[in-house]
């Protein structure tokens, strides 16, 4: 078989193998489904609760996408500002790093004080948790424009703005798309945390209720749904990255 075909098959083989191994271990070691349900049990639960799961998953998906969208817009803007001004960069970096170090679970109560229980806290949590990698990557891409390129353009009378938009932003795009893959998974973490603490719908809320009622298979089913959604969103951002910045992926190693 050709290497290319092997590479295309590999994810499927490994995924199926992982679940098969899990299934076998559960049966051979006779693990209680309260501790670790077998994949078959989980799939049954997914089927059984399908309408409930679909409803809550759609909510979580929307919360995640809204927060992620905010993070992309804000991250691009702030990244451009930080990348083009060394003064603002130096000035705000400690603040940003400090803010990013706060576990976002700890921020949810404040969001509830401000906005009450509802859709705002999950969206805000998803946004707050996922904008940082975007900012850092966009800023790095813009700040590392080759000095010679800058000289060529400045000698022609280019303004700072010209240089940022003609060279900095396109140059930052591979960094930006790279950070999106990190940000989308973080946004899921954020929206689920938000839903667990401050929402009446969503997978996060479902998880809280299911675990309070000891409905273990439902908890696992919800986790599987989250994982699948996460993989799909990741794949979409990775596809966008490939089609937007093909010029940056010409390394022999990436081929």
């Amino acid at each position: 078989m050709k290497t290319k075909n092997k590479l295309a098959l590999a994810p499927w083989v490994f995924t199926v193998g992982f679940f098969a191994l899990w299934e076998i271990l559960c049966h051979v070691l006779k693990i209680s489904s309260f501790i670790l349900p077998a994949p078959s049990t989980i799939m049954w639960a997914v089927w059984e609760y399908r309408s409930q799961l679909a409803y809550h998953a759609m909510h979580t998906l929307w919360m995640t996408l809204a927060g992620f969208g905010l993070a992309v817009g804000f991250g691009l803007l702030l990244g451009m500002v930080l990348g083009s001004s060394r003064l603002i960069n130096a000035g705000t970096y400690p603040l940003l790093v400090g803010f990013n170090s706060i576990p976002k679970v700890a921020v949810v109560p404040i969001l509830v004080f401000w906005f009450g229980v509802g859709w705002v806290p999950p969206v805000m949590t998803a946004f707050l948790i996922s904008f940082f990698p975007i900012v850092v990557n966009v800023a790095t891409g813009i700040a590392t424009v080759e000095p010679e390129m800058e000289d060529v353009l400045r000698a022609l009378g280019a303004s700072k703005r010209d240089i940022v938009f003609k060279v900095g932003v396109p140059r930052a795009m591979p960094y930006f798309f790279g950070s999106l893959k990190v940000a989308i998974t973080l946004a899921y973490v954020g929206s689920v945390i938000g839903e667990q603490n401050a929402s009446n719908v969503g997978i996060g809320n479902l998880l809280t209720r299911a675990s309070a009622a000891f409905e273990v298979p439902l908890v696992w089913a919800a986790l599987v749904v989250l994982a699948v959604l996460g993989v799909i969103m990741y794949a979409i951002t990775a596809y966008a990255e490939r089609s937007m910045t093909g010029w940056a992926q010409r390394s022999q190693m990436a081929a």
Partner: protein
Amino acid sequence: MSVFVDIHDVTHVYARAEDGLPAVQNLNLKVNKGEFAAIVGPSGCGKSTLMKLATGLQFPVEGTVIVDGKQVGAPVKLAGMAFQNPTMLPWRTTLDNILLPLEIVEPHRSRLRRHKAEYVAKAESLLAQVGLKGQGHKFPWQLSGGMQQRASLCRALIHEPKLLMLDEPFGALDSFTREELWCVMRDLHAAQKVTIILVTHDLREAAFLADRIFCMSARPGRIVAEREVEFPRPRDLEITYTPEFSALVHELRGHIAQARQAA
């Protein structure tokens, strides 16, 4: 002949220099309009500083820089530049890279969109002049180092600059490609009547291309010798094997050796 670039008694210290030592000191240099000048010197002698001063990217702490009759107080906007590193933007095709200066500099900036075809034709003709006919649609990373450097020369010339600044443009190329590009440069200069300042380490390159050669001392840089080159134009690569040429290179080498010793 009128003086195009006049650097008069210039001393420049970078604000970021840790030792506070000037990069160039009491630098005097005059290049006539349409002349091909070369600046040679030991490494770290402030040649790049000189380029930045002449294009208005840096302003001297002391002395004056006059380009095209005006004292330089802002980026000059009439210069094209090329460096040892071709610095092509990898997300643009070679043709779009060459058109980049037109998106910056007036009057082209406001004309570019409506007169695109005219500018593209001009870029294509420049590409043909440097031996890259029909290669404009390729991305720069699909071209060899020498081809990228040719494209970078086209980018430096597309807006018809009055002044062309070349900072060791052929430094990273193998000697055959380098000699080929000398001839390209010679022909471009003959065709465009642009004033050129070439900064180089290569004495043969300076002797073959230039009308006037300046030797710089080690840091703090200043001009230690100025030499007119009288070989008739158009020059053929064969002249580099004549005794007169060797004598000139030898003489330049002496100046550089002295400049290095003085440091």
